[in-house]
């Protein structure tokens, strides 16, 4: 691919991000603006921003890559990513908004009336955030290497630098505009090239390989256990993702939090049709891409491969721009939410502390990413979902719906989930991707029930520790807001 194309696309996205970030800066003055955009963001803006933030390297590059490799088995990834939002809507969206908590540690502290629970939750949130940023940086490394031929670390450093500048300069308000813009950019960047590809293919009558006969890697299809375990991770992992939950605070009330989620579901459903189409077309017309071991680059390479010429270069530039929008938006969303947690716990919640925490949140994963290699992007993000599903999901679900949860139970359950799922991830990494048995490669099916069970049993055993504020809290979580608030 022409290296100028990649560099120009990345520069254009970074510039647009910085300009929109600066535009937002002029309206973001107070600490409240900085943290949560003062809760004045309209549902459509907010939904676009949630979509922009959620659609990461795994969605933009990884899903198509996995579909190219393993066919219909990989379709569970986009379905699970979307259905996770349905679970979020059903069990978490409105009560979490009504709790008034800005971060998950805020919520657990208020719910369980315990500073220790807060610290444990903060540690887990920061771990989740860092684990989630790492694949984004791997994606950036892959994209910069494939499209420009520059060394991989350039991509990682560039993404971290742009994220630090936008977050430090504008906080959440400018991030909201940036994220909303980036959703539509990502959608365009996948939709326009695929239209051209389909036109070219139907015009030239290129012979297609029958899809079902393609098995580029010769790998056995995933078993029933793996598919179920993956779905458990994706369905229950979404509702614990820190950068997703922060967004709900920008809704004015619980009912609008639900409406926003409905719009998000629509936006995600439309988006995921496109990676699926890339994967299917890749299997039918360019199965050779899977053999080079660069399946994750399918989306980036397909326009050049099938359209070619000047048009191919332009379409490639668009896709590369979309890919960088994906790395930038997810990373900055995570950095904002991590900075919120770190600055409140370590720096007393000031604007200066938020800026310092933002830099910390972005630089640490850069170190991890540069020391590790990239597996399949959708796969490594799937592992992060398994981890949140085993730690933050139980504490949120039980905290919202069960009066009997105690601080001891919450800590024991989160620790169990973290140790089991983290252990499985570490063992899987040591054994290598091809060698680990299914129950280690996809641990969610047993780690999530284990975390729930420990949380419930320990809470039962320590039932005298149920906080006295429970009645008031449950009332606030589940009753609609006052008319004064909802009439607006």
């Amino acid at each position: 691919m022409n290296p100028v194309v990649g560099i120009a696309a990345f520069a254009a996205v970074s510039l647009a991000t910085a300009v929109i970030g600066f535009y937002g800066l002029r309206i973001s003055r107070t600490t409240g603006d900085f943290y949560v955009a003062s809760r004045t963001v309209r549902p459509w803006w907010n939904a676009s921003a949630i979509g922009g933030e959620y659609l990461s390297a795994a969605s933009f590059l990884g899903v198509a890559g996995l579909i190219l490799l393993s066919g219909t088995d990989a379709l569970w990834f986009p379905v699970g990513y979307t259905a996770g939002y349905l679970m979020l809507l059903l069990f978490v969206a409105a009560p979490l908004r009504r709790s008034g908590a800005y971060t998950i540690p805020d919520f657990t502290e208020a719910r369980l009336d315990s500073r220790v629970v807060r610290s444990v939750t903060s540690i887990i949130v920061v771990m989740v955030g860092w684990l989630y940023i790492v694949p984004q940086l791997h994606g950036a490394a892959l994209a910069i290497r494939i499209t420009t031929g520059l060394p991989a670390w350039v991509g990682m450093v560039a993404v971290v630098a742009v994220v630090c500048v936008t977050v430090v300069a504008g906080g959440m308000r400018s991030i909201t505009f940036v994220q909303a813009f980036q959703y539509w950019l990502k959608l365009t960047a996948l939709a326009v090239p695929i239209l051209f590809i389909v036109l070219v293919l139907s015009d030239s009558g290129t012979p297609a390989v029958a899809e079902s006969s393609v098995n580029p890697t010769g790998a056995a299809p995933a078993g029933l256990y793996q598919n179920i375990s993956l779905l458990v991770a994706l369905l229950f992992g979404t509702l614990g993702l820190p950068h997703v939950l922060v967004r709900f605070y920008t809704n004015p009330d619980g009912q609008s939090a639900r409406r926003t989620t409905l719009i998000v579901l629509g936006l995600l459903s439309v988006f995921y049709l496109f990676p699926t189409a890339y994967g299917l077309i890749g299997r039918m017309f360019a199965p050779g891409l899977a053999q080079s071991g660069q399946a994750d680059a399918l989306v980036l390479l397909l326009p050049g491969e099938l359209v070619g010429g000047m048009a191919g270069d332009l379409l490639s530039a668009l896709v590369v721009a979309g890919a960088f929008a994906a790395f930038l938006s997810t990373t900055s969303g995570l950095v904002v939410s991590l900075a919120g947690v770190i600055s409140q716990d370590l720096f007393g919640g000031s604007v200066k502390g938020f800026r310092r925490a933002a830099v910390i949140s972005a630089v640490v994963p850069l170190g991890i990413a540069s020391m590790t290699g990239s597996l399949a992007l959708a796969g490594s993000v799937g592992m992060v979902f398994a981890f949140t599903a085993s730690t933050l999901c139980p504490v949120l679900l039980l905290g919202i719906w069960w009066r009997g949860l105690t601080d001891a139970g919450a800590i024991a359950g989160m620790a169990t989930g973290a140790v089991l799922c983290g252990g499985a991830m570490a063992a899987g990494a040591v054994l290598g991707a091809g060698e680990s048995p299914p129950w280690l490669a996809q641990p969610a099916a047993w780690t999530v029930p284990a975390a729930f069970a420990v949380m419930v049993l320990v809470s039962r055993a320590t039932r005298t520790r149920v906080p006295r504020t429970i009645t008031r809290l449950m009332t606030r979580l589940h009753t609609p807001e006052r008319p004064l608030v909802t009439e607006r």
Partner: protein
Amino acid sequence: MTRVRVTAPRSVKADSTTPGSAVLPAVRSAADSRDAAEESDAGQVFVRSLIRSQLRLAVVVAVGFLLILVAFPLMLGLVPGLAESTIVGLPFDWVLLGAGIYPVIGLSAWLYIRTAARNEARYRDLVGDK
């Protein structure tokens, strides 16, 4: 029982509507009476029943959705020839799993939101909010 409870997020919201502050005192007192009502034993009966019906609704929608989700691959496996058939030139199993599930998700979400709002409206009627 104490009635001092203007918690942080709510007070922020109240402040942000200060242009209409002329109506605030009346609304405040209405809010206080609702606080008192909710924290009484009778009020808690309503609150608990609201929580139960919202949880039941969420579980029913989730289970219904999961059953449909499981039914899709089962259908492909059990009906002979279905997975190999094509629809407008595309393999049917891809259309079903890659596109057909999304409308089901959207419909479940829409049904849930409508019913959840209705549960809340019923609760408002019970506690006497306008």
